């Protein structure tokens, strides 16, 4: 593993910023935030009891901003390796549009603001869980696991899986088994999702000295682990229906889409060289995003539908 010493991305702190608002928005990792919004919303919607719409909305906003804040802290700390990798070198800090200090301040301010807002608006259990999630992603994953072990995204994936639990806690003041099931779905989904991308970008990770599974343990081992996690994920994806908090429609969709996930993982396992291997990895990566949006999207829509019908009935 190489320790990155190149600090050329760093700016003179006296330089006047030319950062636009959209650069700060990019620091929040908006694509991750959309996923957090959807999964946290699923946690809020499936929580027991009733939460006022505005309280639910502000809680969701606080969770999304908290997730964005941890993204900003991640971009602050990882600017040295982001500057090396093709996928990340245009991010605001390595490209010089925002200084490291500005990203750090932005991340810290939003972290405190989101946690205290959630505490005051919803409850302190949810706020504590959000604070732990930010700490887990920014410190445990970014500062420790990412550069240390190829299991980085397996353990670190817990941070991305917490939003349904935080959402449930915000809406009900408790942690339910339903929200733990939603956590488990995201937790098992993360390794095949990221490793499919890491297969395509393994040279990048190698140059940056990040021990991702493909460059640390080899492509064959990665393909095997992708298949194992996919085989675990597919049945867990069906649990919301089996545990009775999702409809048979969700049940059928989760079975079919889970089988599709395993089929694509099997394709990644079989195709090991050249363009077919790359296209299999790309296919699984794209499908994995669709899969998670589908499961949580259906869960949110049908729970919202049931709520509306209850009100009307």
């Amino acid at each position: 593993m190489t320790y990155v010493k190149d600090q050329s991305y760093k700016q003179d702190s006296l330089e006047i910023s030319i950062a636009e608002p959209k650069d700060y928005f990019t620091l929040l990792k908006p694509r991750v935030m959309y996923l957090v919004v959807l999964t946290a919303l699923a946690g809020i919607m499936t929580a027991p009891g009733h939460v006022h719409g505005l309280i639910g909305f502000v809680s969701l906003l606080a969770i999304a901003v908290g997730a964005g804040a941890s993204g900003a802290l991640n971009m602050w700390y990882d600017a040295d390796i982001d500057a090396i990798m093709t996928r990340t070198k245009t991010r605001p800090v390595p490209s010089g549009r925002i200084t490291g200090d500005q990203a750090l301040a932005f991340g810290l301010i939003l972290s405190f603001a989101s946690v205290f807002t959630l505490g005051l608006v919803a409850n302190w259990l949810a706020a504590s869980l959000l604070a732990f999630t930010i700490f887990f992603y920014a410190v445990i994953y970014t500062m420790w696991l990412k550069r240390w072990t190829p299991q980085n995204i397996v353990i670190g994936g817990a941070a991305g899986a917490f939003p349904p639990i935080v959402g449930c806690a915000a809406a009900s003041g408790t942690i339910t088994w339903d929200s733990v099931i939603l956590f488990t779905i995201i937790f098992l989904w993360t390794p095949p999702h990221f490793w499919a991308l890491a297969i395509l970008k393994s040279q990048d990770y190698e140059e940056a000295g990040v021990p991702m599974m493909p460059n640390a343990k080899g492509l064959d081992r990665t393909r095997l682990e992708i298949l194992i996690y996919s085989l675990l994920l597919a049945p867990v994806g069906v649990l919301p229906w089996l545990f009775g908090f999702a409809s048979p429609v969700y049940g059928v969709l989760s079975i079919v889409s889970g089988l599709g996930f395993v089929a694509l993982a099997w394709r990644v396992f079989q195709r090991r060289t050249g363009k077919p291997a790359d296209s299999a990895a790309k296919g699984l990566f794209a499908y994995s995003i669709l899969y998670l949006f589908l499961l949580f999207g259906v869960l949110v829509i049908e729970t919202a539908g049931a709520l509306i019908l209850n009100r009307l009935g």
Partner: protein
Amino acid sequence: MMMAETDTQIGIKLNPAQEKSRRNRNIAIGLILAALIVLFYAVTIVKLGPSVLNRPL
């Protein structure tokens, strides 16, 4: 007279790109603060209940 002319030149002069980005950042901060004021007001009313508006002054 000389003194006044010198005073106006003290400090950092922003170029057009820096001025534009600073203005855009200020507008964004202003809009976000305004939205937060509305949001926190609404949350306060929801949490305290609408009867808070009916108390005798």
